[in-house]
C-alpha cells in the first residue's frame, strides 16, 4: 500500500528531526556528509525507487566513508555514525506503508544512540521532539491505512500528547522503580575518535583545542570552607619522560606508594566529573581518600577503574600536602633527572651556570629560574611554533607561550641543574557559580605545572605560569567569566543559571542509579530498599498506573451528557429494589411504574421525570438544578 506525498514529507521530516540530536554529537564533516546523503536520497527516491544495485552501492559507499572518517576504528561513535548513514540512505527505498513504518521505527534509534554519546538536557529535549514526531507520523500512517483523510498536524500532535500523558504514570513508575543493576552486564565500547582532554602525554600545541573549549569538566561542591584560589590545583596525569618535544610516562605501578603529611585542615567535597572517555579523576591536590571505584597511583593522582563515559559523582577528601614522598628511591631520582642527550645546549648551559653559582642549592636554583621566568617570558595562547630545540627556542627566542611551554621548559631547566623535577597536568582554578554556590572547572582550565623534589620536603609544586599570569590561572580575569560575549556581560547570569540547571539534571536524572534507588524511600524511614521490595513496589505502581489507564477507558465509555448520566444513576439506584428502568421505557412510564410499587416516592419521582423530559426535549434553563436534584434523590430504605 502506497502513500501520498504529504505523508512522505511528514516521514522525511520525522527522519530529519530524529537525526538532528545524533548529528550534533558526530564530527562536523560526518554530520554534513550524512545530511547531504539524506537530501540526495530523498530527492532521488521521491518519484520512483532507485534500482537495487545503486542503493546497495550507495549504502556500501556510505559505510566505507564513515569507517574512513573514523580511521577504521570501531567505537561507540563509529557505530552511531554508521546508524546515521544507514538512516540517510533509507528514504530512497521507502515505498510502502511497511517501509514507512520501519523507517519510523529505526529512526527512533537515532535519539537512543545519541544518549550513548551525550546525555545532556538538550539531547533529551531533541529526543523528546523526535519521539513526538515519530508517534505523529505513525498516526498518519494508520490513518492512511484506514482509508480516511489524515487529520491536520495539530490534531495529530494533540493526540500524541494525550497518548504520552496517558502512558506517563506507567513510564515514571517504571523509571523510578525498575530495579537498576549496580554494574553493567556488558561494557560500553569506547569512542573511536578521542575528545580533547587530559592525556598521558603532552607536546607543545597539543592543548590549543582543549584550552579553547569552554565546556564544563568538573563541578565541585565543598562541604565547609573552600580552599583559597591559589590552592585550586586539580591533579591529573603526572609526566616523567621527555624526548625533546613530548612529555609522557607515569611512574610504574610498582613504585612506592606516596605518603603525604597534612599541613592543615583538609577539604571535603563532592566532585561531579563530566564524561572524558579517560580514567583520570582530577581530584584536588593532594587527594587523601580513595573512593570506591578508583585507585591512587604512585604519582598521587586518582584513576577511576573504568573510563568516565557518563557523568560520575565522587565523594572525596583532599589535604594540603606537606612532606609528600620525603625519600626518593634511586631509580625514581634517576628518572626525575633524565634528559634527552645533545638537545637545547643553551638551556643546559644556563642551568649549569645556576648550579655552580648557587652551589647546588635546589631552593636557590628554583628561585633563579622563577625570577628568569618572571622577567623574560610572557603568557599567550598564540605561541609561535618552536624548532628542534624547543626549550631553547622558547626560553631565548620566542619567549611567549602558555602552561605547556612554561612547565616543560621549567622542568628541563631543573633537571639540567640537577634538581629532580616532573611535569604535572590537570586543571587549575575554577569559577564559583553564584547560582547554586558550587565551583565549575572547565576544559579551558586545563593546566600543566611542575613539581620539584626537595630533600626533607618531598615533591613541591612550582607553577611558573602562575608567576607570569596568575589571573589567567586562578580564573580571576573578568574575561574568563563564562557566558560573556566580548565585553557584554548580560548573559553571564543566564549562563550561571543554565549550568546550575544542568547540574540539577545531572543530579536528579543522570545520577539516579542502583544506589540512589535503594535510598528512594528514605523520607519514609526506609533506609534501604532491597530488590524484592523494589519489585513489589514496581508491581503495585504498575497496577495503579494501568488502573488509571483503565479508568480513562471507562470514562471514555461513559455517558457524556451529565443529565443523562444522573438519570441513569437514579435508575441504577432502583435496581436493588428490582425497579430499574428498562432501556426502552420512557421516563414518565418508569416513574409511574415505580410510583405504583413505592407510593411514598411517587410524587417526587414523577416530578423529576417531568422535569427531565422538559430539560431533555424542550429548552429549559434549570438543567444544573435538575441534575443536582436527580443526583440527590435516593429511594427510601424499605417501602413495602
Amino acid at each position, binding site marked *: 500500500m502506497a502513500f501520498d506525498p504529504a505523508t512522505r514529507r511528514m516521514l522525511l521530516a520525522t527522519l530529519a528531526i530524529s537525526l538532528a540530536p545524533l548529528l550534533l554529537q558526530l564530527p562536523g564533516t560526518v554530520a554534513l556528509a550524512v545530511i547531504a546523503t539524506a537530501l540526495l536520497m530523498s530527492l532521488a527516491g521521491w518519484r520512483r525507487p532507485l534500482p537495487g544495485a545503486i542503493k546497495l552501492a550507495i549504502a556500501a559507499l556510505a559505510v566505507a566513508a564513515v569507517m574512513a572518517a573514523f580511521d577504521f576504528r570501531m567505537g561507540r561513535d563509529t557505530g552511531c555514525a554508521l546508524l546515521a548513514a544507514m538512516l540517510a540512505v533509507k528514504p530512497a527505498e521507502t515505498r510502502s506503508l511497511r517501509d514507512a513504518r520501519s523507517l519510523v521505527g529505526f529512526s527512533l534509534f537515532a535519539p*537512543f544512540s545519541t544518549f550513548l554519546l551525550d*546525555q545532556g538536557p538538550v539531547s533529551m529535549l531533541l529526543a523528546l521532539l523526535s519521539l513526538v514526531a515519530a508517534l505523529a507520523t505513525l498516526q498518519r500512517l*494508520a490513518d492512511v491505512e484506514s482509508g480516511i483523510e489524515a487529520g491536520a498536524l495539530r490534531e495529530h500532535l494533540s493526540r500524541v500528547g494525550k497518548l504520552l500523558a496517558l502512558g506517563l504514570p506507567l513510564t515514571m513508575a*517504571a523509571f523510578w522503580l525498575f530495579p537498576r543493576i549496580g554494574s553493567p552486564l556488558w561494557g560500553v565500547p569506547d569512542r573511536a575518535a578521542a575528545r580533547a582532554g587530559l592525556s598521558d602525554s603532552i607536546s607543545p600545541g597539543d592543548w590549543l583545542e582543549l584550552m579553547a573549549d569552554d565546556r564544563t569538566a568538573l563541578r565541585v561542591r565543598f562541604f565547609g570552607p573552600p580552599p583559597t584560589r591559589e590552592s585550586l590545583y586539580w591533579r591529573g596525569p603526572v609526566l616523567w619522560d621527555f624526548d625533546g618535544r613530548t612529555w609522557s610516562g607515569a611512574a610504574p605501578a610498582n613504585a612506592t606508594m606516596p605518603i603525604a603529611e597534612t599541613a592543615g585542615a583538609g577539604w571535603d567535597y563532592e566532585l561531579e566529573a563530566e564524561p572524558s572517555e579517560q580514567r583520570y579523576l582530577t581530584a584536588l591536590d593532594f587527594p587523601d581518600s580513595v573512593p570506591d571505584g578508583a585507585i591512587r597511583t604512585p604519582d598521587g593522582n586518582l584513576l577511576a577503574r573504568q573510563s568516565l563515559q557518563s557523568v560520575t559523582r565522587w565523594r572525596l577528601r583532599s589535604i594540603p600536602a606537606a612532606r609528600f614522598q620525603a625519600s626518593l628511591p634511586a631509580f625514581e631520582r634517576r628518572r626525575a633527572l633524565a634528559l634527552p642527550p645533545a638537545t637545547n645546549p643553551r638551556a643546559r648551559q644556563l642551568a649549569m651556570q645556576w648550579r655552580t653559582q648557587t652551589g647546588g642549592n635546589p631552593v636557590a636554583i628554583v628561585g633563579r629560574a622563577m625570577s628568569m621566568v618572571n622577567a623574560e617570558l610572557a603568557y599567550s595562547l598564540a605561541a609561535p611554533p618552536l624548532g628542534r630545540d624547543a626549550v631553547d627556542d622558547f626560553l631565548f627566542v620566542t619567549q611567549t607561550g602558555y602552561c605547556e611551554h612554561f612547565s616543560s621548559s621549567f622542568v628541563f631547566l631543573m633537571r639540567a641543574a640537577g634538581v629532580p623535577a616532573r611535569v604535572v597536568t590537570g586543571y587549575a582554578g575554577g569559577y564559583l557559580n553564584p547560582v547554586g554556590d558550587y565551583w565549575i572547572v572547565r576544559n579551558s582550565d586545563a593546566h600543566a605545572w611542575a613539581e620539584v623534589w626537595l630533600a626533607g620536603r618531598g615533591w613541591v609544586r612550582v607553577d611558573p605560569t602562575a608567576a607570569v599570569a596568575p589571573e589567567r590561572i586562578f580564573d580571576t580575569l573578568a574575561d574568563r567569566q563564562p557566558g560573556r560575549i566580548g565585553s557584554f556581560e548580560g548573559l553571564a547570569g543566564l549562563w550561571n543559571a543554565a549550568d546550575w540547571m544542568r547540574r540539577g539534571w545531572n543530579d536528579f536524572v543522570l545520577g539516579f542509579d542502583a544506589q540512589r534507588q535503594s535510598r528512594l524511600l528514605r523520607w519514609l524511614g526506609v533506609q534501604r530498599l532491597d530488590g524484592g521490595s523494589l519489585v513489589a513496589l514496581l508491581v503495585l505502581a504498575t497496577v495503579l498506573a494501568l488502573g488509571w489507564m483503565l479508568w480513562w477507558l471507562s470514562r471514555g*465509555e461513559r455517558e457524556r451528557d451529565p443529565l443523562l448520566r444522573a438519570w441513569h444513576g437514579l435508575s441504577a439506584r432502583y435496581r436493588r429494589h428490582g425497579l430499574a428502568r428498562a432501556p426502552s421505557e420512557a421516563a414518565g412510564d418508569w416513574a409511574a411504574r415505580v410510583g405504583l410499587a413505592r407510593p411514598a416516592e411517587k410524587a417526587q419521582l414523577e416530578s423529576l421525570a417531568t422535569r427531565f423530559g422538559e430539560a431533555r426535549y424542550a429548552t429549559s434553563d434549570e438543567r444544573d438544578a435538575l441534575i443536582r436534584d436527580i443526583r440527590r434523590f435516593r429511594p427510601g430504605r424499605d417501602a413495602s
Partner: protein
Amino acid sequence: MRLDRRRVYVLPTRFGFFYMALALTMCIGALNYNNNPALLLGLSLIGAGLASLLYAHLQLSGLQVDSIGAEPVPAGQPLQLRIACSVRDARPRAGLRTGLGVESSTLSVPATGGGIVTVPLPTERRGWQDAGRIEISSIRPLGLARAWSWIRPDQPLLVHPTPEAEAPSLPDAALSGTRSRPHFSGEDLHLLRDYQPGDPIRTIAWKPSARHGQLMSRTWEHPHGDEVELDWHALALPHEARISRLARWVEMAEREGRRYALKLPMQPRIGPGSGHDHLHACLRALALMPEAHGH
C-alpha cells in the same frame, strides 16, 4: 447491539511486535549502561504504546450497531450489506474497517451521530444466505494494535434465484395477442411515487425525477394487459432451470405492468397480483424452493 469491552478484542499488529521489541531493546540497553535518558525514551515508547492499545479499544467500544440488512439480489451478484452504526458519546470514530473476508469498506461515525457503510457480500446460490461474522476493526491510532469485534445480522439474508438470461417471452404472449405494451410516454397513464429500492429501472420516471430532485417510479393503479399464469408444472425443464425461467418471467411480467400469478408445487397459488410486494413475494417463494432430489 452495542460493542462493549467484553466484545472488543485487541492484539498487537506485526508492527506492534516490532515496536515492542524496539522499545524493550532500548530499555535493556539503557538499564545495562545505567543511561537514564535512554531509559526514559524507551519507557515513554512503551507507555505510549500501551495507551494506544487502550485508544484502539476505545475506537470500537461504545459503538452501537443499529441494523444490518441487505436488499435481496439475484444469486451471483453481491449482496450490498448495509450496516448502520451510531455513537452516543463524544468520540467520533473514523476509519473502522468493516469487512467480510477480503471485502471491506471504511466506516466513519461522527460524535453523537450515525454512519452507514455498505459491504459487498458475494452470493452463489438462491435461498437464505448466512452473512457469517462481520468484522469491525481498527488499527488506529498508531497502527501498533488492532482492535476488532464481530457482529452478526439478526436475520439471514435472502438471495433471489438468478433469472434465465435468454428466456422466451411470457407463456401466454402468443395465445392472447390482446396484450398491449405499456405506454411509457405521456404522464397521465400512471401514478408517480417515490422510488423504492428494488423497483425495476425501467419504471423510473426520469423527467419527473429531475423535477423533484429525487427518484420517482411509475406505478399503474390499474395494471393494464391481462393476467398471466406462471405454472411450475407447465414447464418441462430441469429443477433449477425451471426456477430460473420462472424468476425471469416474474420480472418480465412485473416490468410489463401485468398481473401475474405464480403456481409452485406443494404451495398455494401466489396472486394474481402485481407491484413491488407481489414481485418480492414471488421471488421469495422461488428463492426458497427446496433443492431438487437427487442432487
